[in-house]
C-alpha cells in the first residue's frame, strides 16, 4: 500500500483515473446497450408499441393534430382514421407536412423507419376504430380481372387521376397525383382512407375484389409499353400539340427554307 500511497498525489493519477472510468462506463454501455433491443423486442408487446407510437406522435404530429389526436385548427382529428391512413400518409412522405400549402405533397425522403410508422399506426388505431393496413392477401391482385378494373377505374378514378393515371388538377392548387409511382399497398390504402381531397371508397362501396381489379389495372398502366412509339407523357392532345408546334413544324419549315433558298 505504500507504493500507492506514495504516488497518489502524482499528476498522472487524475488523468489515469478519468481515462479508466471512461473506458469502464463506455465499454459497459456498449456491451449492455447492444443487447437491449433484442430483449425489448422479446419483452414488449402491443402496449409498448403503442407507447412508442405515442412518443413519436407527440414529437412529430401533435402540434397540428393535437396531443390526443383530437385535431386542431391546422390539422384534422385522427380519431377513427385508422392505421391505413397513418401508413399511407407517413410512408409516402406526405406527413409530417413540410410546409402549409394547398395539399400535402408526396416526398421521396422519409424520416421514419417502417417500425416507427407501424408504431404510430398502432397508436392512431388505438384512438378509435378505422381501416387497418391491408394484408398481403387483400393486396394480391394476381387473379383480378384487369379489364373490369379498367371499367371501375374509368368510373371512379379517371375524372381526377386522368384515364392514363397521370394525375389531374383540382381547384385552388389542389391536385390528384400521378399514379405512376404508386405501389398496390398505397393504392389500396388511398381507396380505404380517402387522403387529402380523395373520397373514401370503403369495402362496402368497392369490395376487396374490386380494389384488387383496380390495382391490377393501374399496375398494368404503369407497366404498359407504348405501341405507338414515343408516348409524350400520356397527357393527351396538349402534349401532342406542343410536339406538333415545336418538333414537326420546325422540321417542315426548315425543309421549306432549305428548298426556298436561292440557287447560286
Amino acid at each position, binding site marked *: 500500500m505504500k507504493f500507492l500511497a506514495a504516488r497518489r498525489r502524482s499528476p498522472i493519477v487524475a488523468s489515469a483515473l478519468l481515462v479508466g472510468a471512461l473506458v469502464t462506463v463506455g465499454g459497459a454501455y456498449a456491451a449492455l446497450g447492444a443487447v437491449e433491443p433484442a430483449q425489448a423486442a422479446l419483452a414488449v408487446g402491443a402496449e409498448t408499441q403503442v407507447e412508442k407510437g405515442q412518443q413519436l406522435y407527440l414529437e412529430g404530429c401533435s402540434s397540428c393534430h393535437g396531443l390526443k389526436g383530437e385535431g386542431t385548427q391546422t390539422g384534422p382529428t385522427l380519431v377513427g382514421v385508422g392505421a391505413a391512413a397513418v401508413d399511407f400518409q407517413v410512408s409516402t412522405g406526405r406527413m409530417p407536412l413540410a410546409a402549409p400549402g*394547398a395539399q400535402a405533397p408526396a416526398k421521396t425522403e422519409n424520416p421514419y423507419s417502417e417500425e416507427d410508422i407501424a408504431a404510430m399506426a398502432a397508436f392512431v388505431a388505438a384512438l378509435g376504430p378505422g381501416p387497418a393496413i391491408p394484408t398481403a392477401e387483400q393486396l394480391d391482385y394476381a387473379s383480378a*380481372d*384487369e*379489364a*373490369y378494373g*379498367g*371499367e371501375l377505374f*374509368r*368510373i371512379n378514378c*379517371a*375524372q*381526377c*387521376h*386522368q*384515364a*392514363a393515371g*397521370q394525375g*389531374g*388538377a*383540382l*381547384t*385552388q*392548387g389542389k*391536385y*390528384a397525383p400521378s399514379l405512376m409511382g404508386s405501389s398496390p399497398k398505397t393504392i389500396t390504402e388511398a381507396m380505404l382512407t380517402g387522403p387529402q381531397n380523395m373520397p373514401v371508397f370503403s369495402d362496402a362501396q368497392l369490395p376487396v375484389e374490386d380494389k384488387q381489379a383496380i390495382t391490377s*389495372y393501374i399496375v*398494368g*398502366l404503369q407497366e*404498359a409499353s*407504348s*405501341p*405507338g*412509339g*414515343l*408516348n*409524350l407523357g*400520356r*397527357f*393527351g*392532345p*396538349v*402534349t*401532342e*400539340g406542343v*410536339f*406538333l*408546334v415545336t*418538333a*414537326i*413544324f420546325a*422540321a*417542315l*419549315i426548315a*425543309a*421549306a*427554307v432549305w*428548298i*426556298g*433558298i*436561292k440557287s447560286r
Partner: protein
Amino acid sequence: MTTTSPVEKVGGATATYVDQRVGSNKFLSRNLGKVFPDHWSFMLGEIALYSFIVVLLTGVFLTLWFKPSMAEVVYDGSYVPLKGVLMSEAYDSALNISFDVRGGLLLRQMHHWSALIFIAAMAVHMFRVFFTGAFRKPREFNWLIGVGLTTFGLLAGFSGYSLPDDLLSGTGLQIARGIVQAVPVVGTWAAFLLFDGEFPGTEFISRLYGVHILLIPGLILALVTIHLMLVWTQKHTQFPGPGRTNDNVVGYPLLPVYMAKAGGFFFIVFGIIALVGGLVTVNPIWIFGPYMPDQVSAGSQPDWYIGFLDGALRTMPNWESVIPGVGWTISWNILIPALVIPGIIFTLLGLYPFIEAWVTGDKREHNLLDRPRNAPTRTALGMMAISFYVLLWVGGANDIIAVAFDLSINSIIWFLRITLIVVPPLVFVVTRRTCLGLQRRDREKLLHGYESGRILRLPHGEFIEVHQPLSEKDIAVITAKHDYAPLPAPDKADVDGVRNKRYRAQMLRHQLSEFFYGVNVPKPSAAEIEAGQHHAAHDAAIEAPLHEYEDADQIHTFHGGVLHHPGMAETNAEQLQQEQRS
C-alpha cells in the same frame, strides 16, 4: 434539229399521239413554262396541300376497316386491358385497326398527325398571306376560299376526333351538344335533330361518318381546286426586288424547277409524316377506354385547333340569366365563348380584305407583296389577333399547365381573364411601334446608306462611321413601299348647303383611315435617296485610301493613327509652322 436523242424521239411521239386525241400540246406549252416566284414562305400552303393528300390516302385505308356503328359488342381483340369490355362497334373496329390490322396503327397515326399538320399549315399559310397583304385585290375571293378551307378543316378534324367513340371523343361530343343546346330558342331541338334524340343515342357516329369521309373532304377538295386554279390564273404574288413590278413575275419556270422543288417537298412532307406516324403516339384511344356517358377523364382536351374554343369556354365566367315570365335560360357562359367569339373571329377574318380595301380607298391590283413593317396597322392587328388566340389556346390547357407547373387552376383562369383583355392591345401598340421603328431604319438606310461599323478618324480629328451605299436589291426592296395618305374628313354639307347623306359612313371611313395610316414614316423622295446614297459613296471614297494602306507594302504616311494626305503636317512642329504660315 440535226441531233435527236431516242428519249426525245419517244417523248415527242407520245406527246403527238396524246395531242392528236386530247389537244393537250397547246395547254401544256402554255402552262409548263409558267413562272413562279421563289420564297420559302410560299411553300407553307404546299405543306397544307401535301398533308391533305396524306390525310386522304391514309383515310381511304382506314375506311376499309372502320365500322361506323354504335351497336354494342364485347371486345375480343388482342389488347388485354379491354378484353371482355362492352363497347361500340366503332371503338371496337378502331382498336382492331390499332392492334390487329397489319400497319393499321401506323396509318391511323399518320392520318391523325397529317390532319393536325394540315390545319396548322393552313393557319401558318394564312399568317403569311395576311401579313404580306397577299389578300388584296384581285385575291379577295381566294382569301375567302381560304377561310372556308380552314373552317372545313376544323370540322373535318373535329368529326374525325369524334368518330372512334373513345372516352375523349365522346367527351368532345358531349361539349359540342352542350354548345348546340345553348343556341337560343332552337338549341334543344337542334341537339335532338343532330343526335336523333337523347345523347348519345345510337345514330350519331354513322351520321358523322358520312360527314367526315364524304361531305367535308368533298367540299375541301372542291375548294382546294378552285383555290389553286385562282392562284394559277391570277399568278402568284412576289416580294419586291430588283426588276420585280406589279405587272411581272420574276422566278423560275414550273418545268423543270418547280416540278422538282414541289415534287421533292411533297416527298419531304410525306416522309416527315410517315416518320412521326411511326415513332410518336397520337391519340392512344386504347388508354382512354370506350365512351360511356357517365364517365369522364381528367385532362380531357380537344386537338390543338379546337383548343382556343375550349379555352374560351374554360375562361368564361359562369353567367346565365333566366327570362322572367317564360322561364327560359340563356347560358351566356356557353353562348359567348362557344358561339359569339368564334363567330366574330371568323366573320372578321373573312371580311378583313374588304374592310381594308374600303378604308384604303385603293382600287389598284396588288401583285407585289407588302413587307409586314410597311403596313404597321395591319401587322399590329394581326399580332393582336394572334395573341388573343394564343391566350385562349393556353386556357384550353389550363389543367395540364396547373399540374405540370404546380399552379392553381383558379389563378390561371383569372390570369387569362385579365390578360385576354389587357395583352392584345399591348401587343398591338408594341407591334406597331416596332414596325414604325423598322420603317425608320429603312428610311435611314436610304438617306445615309447602311452603317458599316468601321470608324474612321479624319485628318482634322473628327471621327465618322463609314456608311456604305445600299445594294441595288436593298434599294428596290425598301423603295417598293407605298405611302397611303389618310382619307380626308367628309363635309357635313356641300357648298350649296345640301346635307351630306353619307356623312356617317364617310366619317367612319375617315376615322378608320386615320387609324390605319395616320402614323407612317414617309418614304424619302427620289432626290433624297440619290443624295443619301451619294453621301454614303462619299464616305466610302474617304475611306478608300485606307484600303490602299492595307494593300501597300510600306506604311510611311500613316502617323499616330491618323490618315495623312500628301502635304499634311506630320509632327506638332510642322503643324505649328503651317498654322503660322496661314
